[in-house]
């Protein structure tokens, strides 16, 4: 195992001298993924995918890339070293977003058109079960211990808490209009849910599913109804949460302890989702309308570069370079 990794490294070293971490971005309209070199900030490859790729995530060993090809009704599995699609996973209809369980095996997929969460075993490539949830499921989170999976439904305006042992819903908690993203705090004690049309982020206590707080946003000169929270990421130290504000073209930096917004960072147009660089020094944001990725320096919290990708970039996932 170790030997093969070393050999692989040696091989890619000789082929590609610009060896670096990568950020992979799905381009929803182009049906491609763009691979950004996290150091040079250049697009080093673009690979074709199925139709309307959105959700994107790597296996724990970064040997496989999972892509929600929404309009192809499939989750595709790509070899990130070659860009080749290895096979499709059964996903149910219109998979938009998913989350990989900490066991690296089960994939929880939101089937947006069918009001279902589909659980797929990535090894046997079989559907384990399907769980009825609210209308237009999208936000997918899983607790770090793997015991609770949360699906949020956009039109039902709820977070559905699913026990991963029984695959039954154990609680449904109401949030503001059109929840888009669910993110557990790295220590698992809190769940954060963004509500795009409600314009808020709701923070829940994981143990009791009780609401702990609700965060609103305000930027001078931007109408309140344009502040539409979508993607969220915890900072590497867990002290801050980055919240993408969609058509407000800003990322909010929220203090995870006080729930106060500390600052707003200007990014590209219609910011969807974000990913941290593997070395945890930079944040990459997908900007749907401007078709680019903004790179934010985490030390200064300033945008430092813009990388042009394909049309309507949506999801993002990081791959460290093996070394």
């Amino acid at each position, binding site marked *: 195992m170790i030997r093969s990794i070393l050999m692989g490294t040696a091989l890619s070293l000789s082929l590609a001298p610009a060896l670096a971490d990568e950020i992979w971005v799905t381009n929803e309209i182009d049906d491609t993924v763009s691979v950004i070199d996290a150091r040079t900030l250049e697009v080093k490859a673009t690979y074709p995918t199925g139709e309307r790729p959105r959700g994107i995530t790597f296996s724990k060993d970064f040997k496989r890339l999972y892509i929600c090809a929404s309009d192809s009704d499939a989750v595709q599995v790509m070899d990130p070293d070659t860009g080749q699609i290895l096979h499709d996973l059964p996903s149910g209809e219109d998979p938009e977003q998913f989350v990989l369980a900490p066991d690296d095996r089960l994939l929880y997929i939101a089937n947006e058109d069918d009001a279902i969460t589909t659980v797929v075993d990535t090894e046997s490539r079989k559907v384990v079960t399907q769980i009825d949830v609210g209308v237009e499921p999208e936000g997918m989170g899983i607790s770090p211990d793997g015991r609770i999976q949360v699906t949020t439904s956009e039109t039902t305006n709820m977070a559905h808490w699913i026990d991963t042992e029984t695959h039954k819903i154990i609680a449904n908690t109401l949030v503001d209009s059109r929840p888009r993203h669910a993110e557990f705090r790295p220590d698992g004690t809190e769940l954060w849910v963004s509500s795009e*049309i409600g314009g808020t982020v709701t923070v829940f206590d994981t143990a009791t599913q009780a609401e702990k707080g609700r965060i609103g946003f305000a930027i001078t000169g931007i109408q309140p109804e344009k502040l539409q929270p979508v993607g969220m990421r915890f900072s590497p130290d867990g002290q801050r949460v980055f919240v993408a504000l969609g058509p407000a073209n800003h990322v909010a930096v929220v203090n995870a302890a006080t729930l106060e917004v500390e600052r707003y960072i200007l990014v590209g147009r219609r910011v969807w989702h974000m990913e941290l660089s593997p070395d945890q020094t930079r944040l990459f944001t997908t900007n749907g309308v401007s078709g680019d990725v903004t790179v934010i320096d985490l030390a200064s919290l300033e945008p430092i570069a813009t990388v042009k990708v394909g049309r309507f970039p949506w999801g993002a996932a990081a791959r460290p370079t093996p070394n």
Partner: protein
Amino acid sequence: MARISVCLALSLFAAPAAAETIRIDWLERQVTPPPVQSNMQARPERLGLDGARLSVADIATTGRFTGMDYQLVETVIPPEAPFLPAAEAALAQGAQLLVVSAPAADLLALADLPAARDALILNTAAPETSLRGVDCRANLLHTLPSVAMRTDALAQFIVTKRWANLAMIAGTLPEDLAYAEALRSSLTKFGLSLAGEKTWPFQSDLRRAATTEVPLFTQDLPDHDLLLIADERGDFGRYVAYNTWLPRPLAGSEGAQPLGWSGVVEQNGAAQLQNRFRDTAGREMAPADFAAWAAIAALGDATTRTATADPAALRSYLLSDRARIAGFLGRPLSFRGWDGQMRQPIPIVTERAVVGLAPFEGFLHAVNELDTLGPDQPETLCTAFQEGP
């Protein structure tokens, strides 16, 4: 400890055994479609109702988790039958939340019934701006945009295109005259004016004569960047396109149309709603379908958030700042506290694409940019809402 909290959460939002049934009425006055020259486009049989049914299915899914059960009671009154007795019968059976597709006169007669005084009525089909003005009623909200909202949207679009020279052809039917008048008002509101205007005079069958008649008819219009068409029934406008003396784009009832909804709307997650609608109705979603869908989505949101079906409480919630309803148009939908009209973006659409979404950039408003469309609070002629929600 963990087990107890799970049970608590369960009792909050998972009590289907004790489900409360909330009755929503669909009240439709069928109207004989007026004759138009083209035989190709029939009015969908369940226009509006298909949107209502889909929306009830949507909110019923939510209801599964909140312990609320929604029941749609459909009353469809044929063109020849009287409207009020059927409406009174529904009210007598307990109808309190009424989603209505009926002409303005029937709508007002319903709203003025003593039995409807405490009901909440949502208008999904009557576009008259006066229903949101001098003829407004406190128990009557509107999810269909008014004519003024649509023509304001078009005027904003024209301003953003910098098309300064405008001409108009208007039909002679009452709705054409109303649309033409609304267009003139909107142009004035946004600093535009008409260079020339003609009334459509033809009684002949244009399907054969358009190529010879329309160039001559449009030859004496002053030069213009855009030709506005006021033809709300879709009678003659389609034959004007590509037959004008000067090659000019059309807008209004033909060409680039300001509509509450259209099958070509796809951004902001709309594709999902369109897919659900096509799957169930087998056709494209029309403005009346969206108005019906939005009315019931608003009732669903209000009943979920207030945990009640009391019409007064729902009305109060919908008219408050708390209501931010998701409607696939990129901005939260809410209701104006001064006339009961639902705030909504207005797509400018062709047959194949959305060419713009009003309100447009640069049309500013102190409170909500959506209030640049249609009569704003300072100029409202509605007094029925003044006691406050």
